[in-house]
C-alpha cells in the first residue's frame, strides 16, 4: 500500500517507470508548515468491516493485507501465526482525536503504538505472538528479522511481518520543526540534496520456514542484524558505527562476503548527513566492490515512509531480482563525490540481483540491515 497504489504491482510499476509519488498533502492542515508535501495515499478503498478499525494506520495495514492474502494463502493453526510489525508512529493520529473535545475512549486506546498490529492480527485470525517493533525508521527491517527468529526457533509456522506508518500532522509538524524536510525535490546522494519528504505506506511479507509451504516465493532472508549507535538521539553516529556493525553482522549471518553482494538498497534519505555517512559505511563494508555494486534509494519516489520504509524496500530488492531490473534513484542527477558509489541514475538498470544488502537507520540511534536472496518462482 503506497502512494503509487493499493497493491504490489502498482508499487513496482511506479518505481520502474520513475513515477513521482510526492504531492501536496490534502488530508490534514499543513498551511502553517514550511513544507506541505509528501507521499500521501490519496485513495484508500474502504474494506469490509473497516469502520470498526477506524485508525488510518490500521486501514493501511488491512489494505496491504488484502493484497498479501490475494497472493499467498496463510495456512497454519491460528496459534502458529505471528504478526510482527515495525512502526515509528503506531496509531498516534488517534491521540489528536482522543484529546480533541468529545474524544472517545476508543481513540485513547487506538492511540497506543501497538494498536494497529493487534487490529491486523484480529483481521487475520492470528493468535500467536503479536509484536510491535518501535525502532523508528529501521523498524520494518527489525520486524522482518524478528519474524525470522520466531520461525527459526519454531515458535510459529507463519509470520506476517513488515511495517507501516500513516502521514499525520503530528509527524509533519515534527520534521518540519527539525528543518529536515526539503522545499525542493528529494535528491538522495546528490550534490544538491537538501532534505527528505515523508510518505505513508504499509508493506507486509508472509514468511515461512524454507520448504514449509508449496507455491511461489519471492525470496529468502539470509541474514539480519540491528545495532545501536549510542551517540545521538536524532542524528546518525558521525562514523556510522552502528550501521556498519549491523551490515557486517547481517552479512556474516548470511555467510555472504562483499564479493557475493549484487545490489545495495540504501536508506538514502536525501539529508546531508545521512547520505554521506551511509556511503562511507557502504564503502568500508564492501571495500573495492563498492564501486561495482548497483545502489539505489526509493525515498524520492514515495517519500520516507518511516516504519514501512525498510519492509517496502526489502520487497523492492526481491522484485528487482525477480524482474531483472533495478529501479533508479529518482532525483539523483549529480552524485556528491562524498557519496561515491555505483548509483543507479537516469533510468532503471537491467540487472538481476540475487543477493541484496538493505540498510536502515532511525531516531534513537537505531540501525538495521537485511541480507536477502531473490529466488525464481
Amino acid at each position, binding site marked *: 500500500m503506497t502512494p503509487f497504489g493499493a497493491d504490489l504491482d502498482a508499487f513496482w510499476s511506479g518505481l520502474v517507470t520513475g513515477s513521482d509519488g510526492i504531492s501536496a498533502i490534502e488530508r490534514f*492542515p499543513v*498551511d*502553517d508548515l514550511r513544507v506541505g508535501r509528501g507521499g500521501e495515499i490519496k485513495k484508500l478503498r474502504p474494506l469490509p468491516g473497516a469502520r470498526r478499525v477506524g485508525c488510518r494506520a490500521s486501514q493501511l495495514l488491512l489494505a496491504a493485507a488484502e493484497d498479501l492474502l490475494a497472493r499467498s494463502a496463510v495456512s497454519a493453526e491460528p*496459534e502458529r501465526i505471528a504478526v510482527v510489525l515495525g512502526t515509528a508512529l*503506531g496509531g*498516534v493520529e488517534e*491521540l*489528536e482525536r*482522543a*484529546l*480533541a473535545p468529545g*474524544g*472517545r*475512549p476508543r481513540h*485513547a*486506546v487506538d*492511540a*497506543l*503504538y*501497538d494498536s494497529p498490529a493487534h487490529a491486523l492480527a484480529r483481521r487475520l485470525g492470528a*493468535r*500467536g*505472538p*503479536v*509484536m*510491535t*517493533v*518501535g*525502532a*523508528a525508521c529501521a*523498524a520494518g527491517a*527489525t520486524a522482518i528479522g*524478528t519474524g525470522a*527468529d520466531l520461525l527459526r*526457533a519454531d*515458535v510459529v509456522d507463519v509470520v506476517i511481518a513488515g511495517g507501516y506508518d500513516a502521514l499525520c500532522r*503530528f509527524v509533519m*509538524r*515534527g520534521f*518540519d520543526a*527539525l*528543518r529536515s524536510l526539503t522545499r525542493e525535490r528529494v535528491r538522495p546522494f546528490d550534490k544538491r540534496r537538501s532534505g527528505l519528504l515523508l510518505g505513508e505506506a504499509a508493506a507486509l511479507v508472509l514468511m515461512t520456514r524454507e520448504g514449509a509451504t508449496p507455491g511461489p516465493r519471492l525470496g529468502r532472508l539470509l541474514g539480519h*542484524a*540491528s*545495532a*545501536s*549507535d*549510542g551517540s*545521538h*538521539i*536524532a542524528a546518525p553516529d558521525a562514523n556510522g*558505527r*552502528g550501521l556498519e*556493525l549491523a551490515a557486517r*553482522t547481517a552479512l556474516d549471518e548470511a555467510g555472504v562476503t562483499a564479493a557475493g553482494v549484487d545490489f545495495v538498497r540504501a536508506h538514502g534519505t536525501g539529508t546531508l548527513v545521512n547520505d554521506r555517512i551511509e556511503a562511507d559505511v557502504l564503502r568500508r563494508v564492501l571495500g573495492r566492490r563498492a564501486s561495482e555494486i548497483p545502489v539505489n534509494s526509493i525515498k524520492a519516489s514515495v517519500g520516507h515512509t518511516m516504519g514501512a520504509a525498510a519492509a517496502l524496500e526489502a520487497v523492492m530488492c526481491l522484485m528487482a531480482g525477480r524482474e531483472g531490473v533495478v529501479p533508479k534513484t529518482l532525483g539523483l542527477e549529480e552524485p556528491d563525490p562524498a557519496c561515491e558509489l555505483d548509483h543507479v541514475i537516469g533510468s532503471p538498470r537491467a540487472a538481476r540481483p540475487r543477493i541484496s544488502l538493505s540498510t536502515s537507520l*532511525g*531516531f*534513537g*540511534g*537505531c540501525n538495521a540491515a537485511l541480507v536477502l536472496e531473490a529466488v525464481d518462482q
Partner: protein
Amino acid sequence: MTGTTVEGVAVLTGWGQGIQALPADATRAAAGRAVIPLGRPALEGERFRRATRECLLGVAAVDALLREHRISREVITGSATALIYVTGGAYGASNHAWVVADTARPAEPDDRPGERRRGSVSGTLHFPYTAPSVMSGEVAIEFGLTGPYGILIGGAAATVDGLWQATVLLEAGRCERALVLAVETFEDCAELYARGRWLVRRPLVEAAACVLLTPGGLRTRYDAPRAPSALETRVRTRAGETLACAPLIALALAREDGATGPVGVTGEWRGRRAGLYWH
C-alpha cells in the same frame, strides 16, 4: 549453543526503590489513587536537562542495576552488550505534550501561515523525544551501548517477548550480555488511561526495571500459557498495574525468594499471554 542466566535485576516503582518497597496489597495501599507516580530522577549532566522523565527513569534503572550488583559501567559499555527496551505507553507523556502544544491556541481566521497553532513546546527540542526509540537511545548514549538493539511496544507480554529475544541473541553468540529494560509512566496521561479502563487495571503504578542476562547453563522455553503464573499474580497483587515492567519485577521477586535455578515468568497484554521459562 549455550543457555542463559539472570545475572541481576533492579526495580524502581512508585512505591519506592527495590521490591522491598512493594506493599503486600497494591490496591489497598493505593487507597483509591488511580496512579502511583515515580518522581523525576535527579541525574547530573547537561545532556539530561532536556531529557524527558521517562528517559531518565530508564537511565536510573540501569544505574540501579549496576550499583546493586556491583557491576562497573565499563563492563556493559560497547558492542558486546545488547539492549532490548520495552514499553507499553511511556511515550504517552511526550506525545501528549506534542499534541497539546499544537492545539493550545486554535487557529483564527486572520492568522497568517506560520503563526498558527504555535504552542510552548519547541519542535527541535521536544519532537525527537516523542519517539519510543529515543528513550532507549538516551540509555544507550549514557552507558555507551553499541551492540544489538531491540525496541518492543506493548505490555507484559511484550516484555516476555523481549526477554526471549535477549536469550536468542545470547544463545546465538550475537552478544556477551543483554540488558532488558522496561519503563512505564502514566501520570501525564492519567485521564486517557481512565478512558481505556477495560485495557488496564488499577492502580497504575509507574515503574522502571532492568534485568541483565548473561550466558549460562539454563535453557529457555518460550510459549503461550493460558493461565498466569503464580509470580504474575503476585506481581499484580503487590505492585499493581506496571504493564511492561511486570515480568522484570517478577524476576526480582523470584530472586528474593532465593530462586537460582528454574524460574518462569508470564505476562499478559491485550488478551495474549506469553511465558518464558528457564529450566
